[in-house]
């Protein structure tokens, strides 16, 4: 079956001073699912952006079925039979589901200059039904659907034209288990119809299970291609990082007792439409994991503690009796929060690393309300270095950083603030193994120092590996509680989740 459909030849992409893709020559076969893995910033997303015409190629070329592929935009790539499903939201708000699916293809439904909306809706509904997404109504506005449903709509949009190449870029991080299964079955379908899927994911187990071959990128270079049936996560990690990773990934201690001192009491907290009657305590030096299905309300719990929820009832009280009612108050009383929505809620994207690190600590760094710019610089420098943020300098804008580095900036600002309670929502979402390991190590270190952590996560392994105690939410209520224990497994958690 060595029927090559797509080939890249000596591909280069430079962004100013950095070379994101360096001399990559890679072959994709007909009817295969080809995994593409690498750390953050290894060039895998850039590679696909070049393929789909999102960025212009610096040098080298793509050959699709022997002919050079020169796409200057995603729509052009689409017409050549290449489509992409991206990590972040790729649908347009304010349009209907059908309009989103046929965006750029409206010509098919034109009666002269009038759009035949009914025909469009009918066709879109037929497609949705054929994928088994019957709960999505084509004529409704896309805004009515959850993040996850919008991803499913994107999948339909990307694959209904029966493209020769489908790129799935980090899509699974946005999906729940059920959504992932839907995606995998669509990928299988594409493969069985003789076309090719390029699958990018950080979840190595997932990659091994669902691909035929896997190519590994490191620092923009192709390290090698392996057969999925003949490899292991250990080997892949080694190839990605370039050295053997020690197995000290999660915590290894069990049976340690947690202090009795309660630092945070959540009492009967409800947020309309999100969570109901949530009550629990957080102890000093404890890592409390909160898990559940992605729509179970667990993300709102973090916001509610941080004073960021709208219409919250019930109370969140600290050790000293202070009741958290606003974000401003929460920060002043030593609560740190890293949102799942990193780009809009965790950091100011269009601002410098310096300002982002200093922002919560301005009152601490200033003396009698007077700021000293040199002091701010050294403050930012110190904590950025402590977290080893990869940057050209603290003046660099956060928008230029990779996902893992952005998260490092988020964490360094809270380390700088010297908070006592860390609420981390999906702290390793979309982050590569090396930075992940750094974040886990940091969490253990914070725990040793007596800081308390609430980790909200959709990844069960992470919850099991790091938490002293795990709360499972279902439909906005606490549905189960587990104490750290070696025999605890994913299955135990899942039974309380669904």
């Amino acid at each position, binding site marked *: 079956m060595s029927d090559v459909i797509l080939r890249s030849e000596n591909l280069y992409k430079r962004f100013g001073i950095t070379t994101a893709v360096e001399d990559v020559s890679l072959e994709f076969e007909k009817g295969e699912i080809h995994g593409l893995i690498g750390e953050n910033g290894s060039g895998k997303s850039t590679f696909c952006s070049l393929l789909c015409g999102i960025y212009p190629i610096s040098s080298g070329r793509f050959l699709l079925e022997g002919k050079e592929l020169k796409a200057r935009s995603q729509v052009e790539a689409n017409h050549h039979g290449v489509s992409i499903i991206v990590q972040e939201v790729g649908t347009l708000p304010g349009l209907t589901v059908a309009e989103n699916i046929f965006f750029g293809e409206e010509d098919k439904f034109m009666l002269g200059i009038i759009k035949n909306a009914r025909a469009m809706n009918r066709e879109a509904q037929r497609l949705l039904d054929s994928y088994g997404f019957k709960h999505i109504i084509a004529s409704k506005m896309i805004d009515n659907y959850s993040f996850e449903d919008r991803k499913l709509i994107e999948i339909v949009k990307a694959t209904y034209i029966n493209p020769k190449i489908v790129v799935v870029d980090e899509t699974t991080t946005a999906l729940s288990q059920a959504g992932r299964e839907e995606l995998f079955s669509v990928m299988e379908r594409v493969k069985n119809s003789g076309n090719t899927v390029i699958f990018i994911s950080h979840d190595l187990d997932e990659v091994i299970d669902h691909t035929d071959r896997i190519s590994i990128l490191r620092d923009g270079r192709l390290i090698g291609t392996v057969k999925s049936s003949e490899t292991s996560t250990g080997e892949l990690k080694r190839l990605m990082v370039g050295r053997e990773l020690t197995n000290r990934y999660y915590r290894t201690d069990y049976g340690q007792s947690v202090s009795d001192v309660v630092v945070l009491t959540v009492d009967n907290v409800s947020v309309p439409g999100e969570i109901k009657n949530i009550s629990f305590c957080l102890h000093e030096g404890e890592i409390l994991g909160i898990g559940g299905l992605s729509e179970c309300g667990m993300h709102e719990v973090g916001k509610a503690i941080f004073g960021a929820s709208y219409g919250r009832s019930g109370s969140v009280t600290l050790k000293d009796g202070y009741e958290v009612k606003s974000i401003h108050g929460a920060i002043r009383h030593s609560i740190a929060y890293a949102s799942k929505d990193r780009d809009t809620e965790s950091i100011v994207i269009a601002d410098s690393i310096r300002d982002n690190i200093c922002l919560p600590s301005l009152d601490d760094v*200033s003396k009698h309300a007077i700021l000293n710019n040199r002091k701010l610089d050294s403050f930012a420098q110190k904590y950025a270095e402590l977290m080893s943020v990869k940057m050209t300098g603290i003046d660099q804008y956060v928008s230029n950083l990779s996902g893992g580095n952005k998260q490092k900036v988020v964490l360094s600002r809270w380390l700088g603030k010297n908070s006592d309670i860390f609420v981390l929502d999906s702290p390793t979402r979309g982050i590569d193994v090396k930075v992940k390991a750094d974040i886990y190590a940091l969490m253990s270190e914070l725990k040793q120092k007596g800081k308390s952590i609430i980790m909200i996560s959709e990844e069960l392994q992470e919850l099991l590996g790091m938490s002293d105690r795990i709360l499972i939410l279902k439909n906005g209520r606490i549905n189960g509680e587990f104490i750290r224990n070696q025999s605890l497994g994913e299955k135990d958690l899942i039974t309380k989740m669904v």
Partner: protein
Amino acid sequence: MGKRSETTAVERQKRHKYLRDLMPLFGFLGIVLLFSILTGGRIIRPENLSLMFSQVYVLLIAAMGVFLIMTVGGLDFSQGSILGLASIIFCWVSSYSIVLGVIAAVLAGAAMGAFNGFFHVKFKIASFIVTICTMYFFRGLCKYITTNGPVPASTNVMMLNETWFKLLLTGIMLFLGFMVWHFTRLGCDLRAIGAGETAARFSGSRPDLLKFLVFMVSGAITGFASFINVIKVGSITGTAGSQLETQILIALVLGGMPISGGAKARFPNIIIGTLTYCVLEMSLPMVFPVPATQQLVKGIVFLIVVALTIDHESLRVIK
């Protein structure tokens, strides 16, 4: 070798960024040079310079307030009307005491600004809509009050019409503004709000409160500017201060102020922008003496200057 070429590239990028920041300054110098040549050196003669300076003060002070508003991503079209109304109030009170008059004008300005801020924040109406409405509203009040003729200031006020005095007041205001912008957390907070309001809120800034305050302070600053305005003109008519809002906005943009605010707002934007504006405003009539074509030429010249000096890079960050 790779390492070295990388560091020089970083240097080059830094230099490039530095040059970009200086672009409005080059624009200003270029315009001064160009019009010095076109007018045969007339614009840099002392009498013309002092004429220009007499127009700079009000604009410079009022632009400071709008600078803050634009930093958080807002716009304010009501500044001219605020200036007009605050000037009338100053005239009234100044017959009792000039100091009281200044205080009254500042308070009146603050109240009008707070009115803007309240509607913007509380009802979540875009600031340019709110301020276009209040522009008419405050202007309406001005015209109503002056139906029976202009409101004169007390004659004592006219005695203050000395260049050193106006220069001193303007200098003090700029100095205060600069200190607050650079050495308190306000500058950081406002820039962060302009760059990303939600993230700023999640970082402990209070966008709603600060936006309200910024409008109020901006009104108060313009209230203070009305003092200098009255010193200059002596009595207030119904149209006093009209066009100030557009002058301020053009001046700030000429000074390199990003229209969407955010992290790239710099205090010197105010000063360079205002000076550039005043030089253009003064020299254009000398070069194009026919009044009928002046506005036309002005529009084109402003457009060219902004297009040449604006930081295109930063505009791409806008969502």
